[in-house]
């Protein structure tokens, strides 16, 4: 895939991103959260997706960005499962101790 030196590819991209309805990678970056939320309007989404189609760097970047979100969620889910499977008994007792003496008021 890397037939052209990256400096040349970069120059081509920087010229291309100045065309109408084109955005730069830096502009693309600003829209990522809104894109993933589904809160871009139709025109914005088309411009975003067009950049995605022509820019391999941003395609890779967005894929990695989403993977990082997935990995984070998976790891924290696994941590939650561990916590649920092994609730500390002394904490249960401590919480109950703050509540149960009031029974005898």
């Amino acid at each position, binding site marked *: 895939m890397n037939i052209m030196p990256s400096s040349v590819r*970069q120059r081509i*991209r*920087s010229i291309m*991103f100045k065309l109408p309805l084109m955005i*730069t*990678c*830096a*502009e693309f*970056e600003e829209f*990522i*959260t*809104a894109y993933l939320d589904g809160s871009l309007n139709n025109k914005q989404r088309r411009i975003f997706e067009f950049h995605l189609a022509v*820019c391999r*760097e*941003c*395609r*890779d*970047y967005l*894929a*990695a*960005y989403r*993977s*990082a*979100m*997935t*990995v*984070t*969620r*998976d*790891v*924290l*889910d*696994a*941590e*939650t499962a561990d*916590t*649920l499977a092994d*609730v*500390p008994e002394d*904490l*249960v007792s*401590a*919480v*109950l101790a*703050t*509540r*149960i003496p*009031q*029974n005898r008021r």
Partner: protein
Amino acid sequence: MNLPESTDLDSGTGQKLAPLAGRDKAATEQFVRANLGWMLAVARRIVVDGSIAEDVVQDAFSNVFRHLEAFRGDAALKTWMHRIVVNQALMALRKQSRRNEQPIDELLPEFDAAGCRVDEPSMLSHLAQTPEALLLSSDRRQQVLANIDRLPDSYRVVLMLRDIEELSTAEVAEMTGLTEANVKVRLHRARAALKKLLSPLFEGTAL
């Protein structure tokens, strides 16, 4: 939300709460056992330190008990309790001095003068095809957790509240005192920083 889908406490809240309000010992214990695990998981995600998380859960329960009689069931019980434990955790976090966080500026993507991305490619972009078991080995989990912990708290918390606790932008803004625009910016920066922090862990991963 990262909570068990539905405990029986979610249905018929009023009836279930009656014995608690009456301070029935067995019902109280059942209630505590049904909720302590997920509340502790939430607290750990936000404050990180295990013993502080336990203090947070204790304080959250005492808050829940104190206001149980006033709880009218206008929101799901679990949603209400979730907010209590999140708020308690945020308060505890504000009192903590922080460990080894890395400045966010070092973790954000870079662009050249023409606005072109100049990041190194990341193996993370190919991760979608990687078997889950590989990702979640115990070592890998610890590494991922350690790297999440390197995010500055003011970014890490927004990421946790939005992406993991699944609170809305407006809710996060209210709980943290940030503007909604700021919540959005911090969420994006936290995710971008995490992408950079996690990428080295997946270099050389067999795909």
